[in-house]
């Protein structure tokens, strides 16, 4: 409860109008970042403990990637070979959403809990994003697949040879070059 209570307290602080709108001083903003980061990492321990009970993976890492929104994930940056992605659906109903995982440009096979192959594609990250000099350049692509989750579901990602995989390939079109 210590971690969850700290998350609750931090979320209370984040309701302040300066935190909502970003009108706090920079040092305060940086401190808010620190508090939120510590609260999220702390609560990740609760999530991990819960998932170890809810799934049959008592030793699963259940790592979070806090920079997925900028196409970065330390867990998959060296290649997403034999990775299990566990999805938790916070909605009160089943939901179908597309999932994007930062990966290297390789061939992957995604399977669901019943071992069925799920269609997937590897899409390049825009070059402007890659051009950012302080961004890790290891993952230049994202693996995309569609997931349907009631509450908790897992999808397995395995690196395969191109001949083994039947997923559709991405076609690149540059209209001006074509003209």
């Amino acid at each position, binding site marked *: 409860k210590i971690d969850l209570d700290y998350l609750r307290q931090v979320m209370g602080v984040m309701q302040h109008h300066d935190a*909502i*709108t970003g009108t*706090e*001083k*920079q040092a305060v903003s940086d401190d808010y970042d620190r508090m939120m980061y510590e609260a999220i990492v702390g609560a990740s321990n609760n*999530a991990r403990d819960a998932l170890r009970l809810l*799934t*049959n*993976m008592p030793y*699963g890492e*259940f*790592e*979070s*990637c806090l920079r*997925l929104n900028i196409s970065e994930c330390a*867990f*998959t940056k060296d290649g997403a070979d*034999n*990775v*299990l*992605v*566990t*999805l*938790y*659906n*916070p*909605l009160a109903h089943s*939901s179908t*959403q*597309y*999932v994007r*995982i930062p990966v290297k440009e390789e061939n992957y096979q995604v399977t669901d809990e019943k071992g069925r192959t799920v*269609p*997937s*594609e590897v*899409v*390049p990250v*825009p*070059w*402007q*994003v890659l051009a*950012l*000099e*302080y961004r890790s350049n290891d993952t230049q692509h994202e693996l995309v*697949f*569609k*997931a349907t989750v009631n509450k*908790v579901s*897992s999808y*397995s990602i395995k690196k395969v040879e191109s001949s083994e995989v039947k997923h*559709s*390939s*991405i*076609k*690149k*079109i540059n*209209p*001006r070059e*074509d*003209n």
Partner: protein
Amino acid sequence: NSETVVENSVVKLVMDNHTGRLKSVEMNGVSEKIVQNFGVYKSHTSCAYTFRQDGDIELFENDFEFTVYEGSLVKEVHQHVNDWISQVIRIYEGVSRVELEWMVGPIPIDDKLGSEFVTNFKSEISSNGVFYTDSNGRELMKRVKDKREDFVSDLSRQPVSGNFYPVTSRIALQDDTKRLVLLNDRSQGGASLEDGALEMLIHRRHLFNDGGGVGEALNETQYGKGLIARGKLYLILDSATDGDTVTERKTEKELFLPFWKFFSKTGGVEITPS
């Protein structure tokens, strides 16, 4: 060869090959000309609390470079607007919305002026100055351009920023037949400054502090440069019939509460999660 069509089973986008801009959208049985632009309001006196533009919007009028990536699950248009702005327009198979992932920054300050970067979408929907913004993700509030609900307003000194409202989840406009909605991933300022047009503030950087309380200019840096912001807007075009907002609300919940992702190594062992 003047346009590129990017479509799946539920959404059709038409890109203008010459300008590199979105030209029209077709979805939910509705087709509409929708042109997207990016622009900036320059300012000497905007600060963290206030948006006071010096003049009209400066639109980026150059042609955008763009490349299309087509797969069967996802189709993406990668646009390069200029040195500070790029965008991915994305449609997923079976999903009735258009995802626009923008990236803006570092905003240049060589001219010693502050900047409010915006993107706007112009359609031919006859909205007659009326648009709607959400009230903290709940009810939609009716807004009328240049007007206030409870008093006679004079917005002549700030005709642009006086029409901006907080948008925490969505902004919409419609006429008798069509409805255009933008959903966002964070609180932003939004307005409808012309009939059929929606505008969103996506990034800002300022050098002025007006003494209103914060005591600092809004001039965030990282690694010695201005911040780069990356986020998403979602565009939905639909018919303007009663009850359609239910779909918007469901979409909004999915966007605000996406799946949480957790990663584990399997070590090559087949695992069948319970």
